[in-house]
């Protein structure tokens, strides 16, 4: 399995987009940091820090693209045959791809975490204090950490769906579209969903509602809207992730290539 993860990482690292993404991510975060420094009235430095200078939102987009391509490229390039006709079990090959993506997403989140702190100390050392209260419950630093953790769990809920779609359609375009649309759809239909949940209680278990996890971790009163407790949201997200990955596994094992 370690050999397979090494192979997947080798492929990932040799794609030109991989180093580019790290650089783009840092540039974008720096740009938002500088904006907040220059126009603190429009961009509150504290709020931007809690949102990791928009870093974690970009990571979602980059990871959606990476996950769809790690599966779909093998079909697109015809390399799936070479990848599969070896001594390894199919399941191992798929799981090695997931683990590579998990490592990649942890790397990107760690990068966002560390670089947000660097930006905070370089640009806003005296502007705000990490220990000060932010919002209703937690300190700035805790809110920042909770947002990242919540977003990470939410990210993997989306990624498990993207991995499944890439597997079914064998095309990254379809998987990327659904992933990104799904991610933004939440904001658009949030209001509608709240109404629907009030009317039909069981709808609170729908996967889009689970995406509110990071919000509710910072603002516990959101549970009045989501109708679920924070642990319920966390377990729900993990359960959906597991379900989508399990379907992927079955699809991949049965596929004739």
């Amino acid at each position: 399995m370690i050999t397979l993860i090494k192979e997947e990482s080798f492929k990932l690292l040799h794609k030109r987009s991989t180093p580019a993404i790290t650089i783009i991510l840092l540039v974008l975060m720096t740009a938002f940091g500088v904006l907040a420094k220059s126009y603190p009235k429009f961009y509150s430095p504290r709020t931007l820090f809690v949102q990791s200078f928009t870093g974690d939102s970009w990571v979602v987009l980059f990871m959606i693209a990476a996950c769809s391509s790690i599966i779909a490229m093998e079909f697109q390039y015809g390399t799936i045959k070479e990848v599969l006709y070896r001594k390894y079990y199919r399941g191992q090959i798929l799981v090695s791809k997931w683990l590579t993506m998990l490592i990649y997403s942890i790397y990107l989140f760690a990068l966002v975490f560390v670089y947000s702190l660097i930006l905070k100390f370089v640009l806003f050392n005296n502007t705000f204090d990490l220990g000060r209260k932010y919002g209703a419950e937690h300190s700035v630093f805790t809110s920042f950490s909770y947002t990242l953790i919540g977003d990470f769990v939410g990210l993997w809920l989306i990624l498990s769906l993207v991995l499944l779609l890439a597997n079914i359609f064998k095309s990254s375009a379809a998987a990327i579209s659904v992933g990104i649309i799904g991610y933004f759809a939440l904001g658009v239909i949030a209001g509608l969903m709240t109404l629907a949940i009030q009317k039909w209680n069981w709808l609170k278990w729908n996967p889009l509602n689970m995406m509110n996890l990071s919000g509710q971790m910072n603002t516990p009163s959101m549970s009045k809207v989501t109708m679920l407790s924070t642990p319920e949201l966390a377990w729900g997200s993990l359960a959906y992730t597991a379900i989508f990955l399990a379907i992927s596994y079955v699809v991949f094992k049965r596929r004739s290539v």
Partner: protein
Amino acid sequence: MADTDTILQVEHLNKSFGSKKVLQDVSFTVQRGHIVGLVGPNGAGKSTIMKAILGLFNYSSGHISIDGEAVSPTSHKAMDKVGALIEYPGIYPFLTGYQHLKLFSKDGTPKAQIMDIVDKMKMGGYINRKAKTYSLGMKQKLGIALALVNRPDLVILDEPMNGLDPQANKDLRTIILDLAKQGTTFLISSHILSELEKLVDDLVVIDKGQIVYQESMAALENGSAKLLILKTSNDSKAKDILTQNGYELSQSDQVAVVEKADTKMPDIIKLLSASDIDIDDVQHVHSDLETSLLKLLQNDKVKES
């Protein structure tokens, strides 16, 4: 359990796409160290068989074993001994040729072993270039190198001559024959029968998903007639004389004598000269793989299902 000389055994393989049967009761064996040609018309099921052997395809029923170990999409252990190129080479455009070989070679493969196949395939000039700059032939060579880099016991090549220039074609033939001498087994499909003819020991012919012929090349050659074709000043008279003297003639407009062990050219010339028939030209015609194969496929009794 197969005997030790059999490296690949395919038994009663069946496969359908919906109601269309693509493989029907396909059984054949491949002997260790042999080069076996898998031939048949387009859509006969050659690639499907190869994919099934590689554990890429689910099949409805049947059994495949390599070196005595069962192979299926869920059982891949025997694949450690197999190298393959199926349909077209799978190439990552963002990797160089060398990186491909490194990626798909087993852990701890020395650089010398990788460079050995690079040299044999004469790919040294571009092996460190990104594969997106490769021509069709270069990609094909890389695909073949990928199939051979781990020095497998069994090599499965689907149309390996695709896109290769005449020199590369000859190089490939030399490599295959050398490896076979050292004990590597090959299963090769190709439409270029004249190329295949120079390589294979045994032939498996498939048509409409069924095996219609499985024999050694030698048997196929022996089975086909050798002919002496004569051009004479008076063909009809020549035919009469030859028939009267006990020669067997092939059904043809030309004077075509079926060659037998005791057929001697001087006897025929003397016989015809004695009757005042001039011989303008003589040709030995030996039916090649193409002719034999086309005849075989024409005569076969496989019905479309």
